[in-house]
């Protein structure tokens, strides 16, 4: 596909459960970013990867959140012991190089009951 894709588009889970959110960046883009957007707010940075390594994970709210990008392409955001406050739209973006424009996927809407 031509754009960034994210799966699932919607995820409903129960408090305390584990979830994985997937991001497929644009082919050839070296940088991949995760953001979280709560209702009525702008997206907030979580973590970004340059290649396979997490170059900056300063936005992850706590150690329940973890992300990987093992082969430098697809990334998975993992949330353990979900809490109701984790409910938000999780957005993934990629860019050809660091500092270039970022292209966003449609997001995954996570609802924690």
């Amino acid at each position: 596909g031509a754009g960034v894709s994210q799966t699932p588009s919607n995820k409903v889970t129960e408090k305390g459960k584990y979830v994985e959110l997937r991001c497929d960046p644009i082919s050839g883009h070296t940088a991949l970013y995760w953001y979280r957007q709560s209702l009525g707010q702008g997206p907030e940075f979580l973590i970004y990867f340059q290649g396979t390594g997490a170059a900056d994970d300063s936005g992850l709210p706590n150690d329940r959140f973890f992300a990987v990008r093992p082969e430098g392409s697809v990334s998975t955001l993992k949330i353990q012991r979900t809490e109701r406050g984790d409910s938000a739209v999780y957005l993934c973006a990629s860019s050809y190089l660091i500092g270039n424009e970022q292209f966003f996927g449609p997001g995954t809407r996570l609802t924690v009951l």
Partner: protein
Amino acid sequence: SQQGEEDPQALSIQEGENATMNCSYKTSINNLQWYRQNSGRGLVHLILIRSNEREKHSGRLRVTLDTSKKSSSLLITASRAADTASYFCATAPREKLVFGKGTKLTVNP
């Protein structure tokens, strides 16, 4: 934390009118980007302006940047109902983007 502040928070205009949105930020930046978002989902990249640029055009969009005032503006000319969306400025002090809360633009037909 969110660095950018868009102004106004909401804007309602008639089709054909121009819409101007402003963004202020706090720290030095490498570039500033404007995005559009429909219905709270995917963000569409509109334009990127680098810190050494003052003005940039793309179709009906005009973006200005004043680094001395730490501010930017987005002008949409001859607005259309399809321009109805939320608009965000995002600053790039480094690699990650820092977004404001956005301006909700409504263009009435």
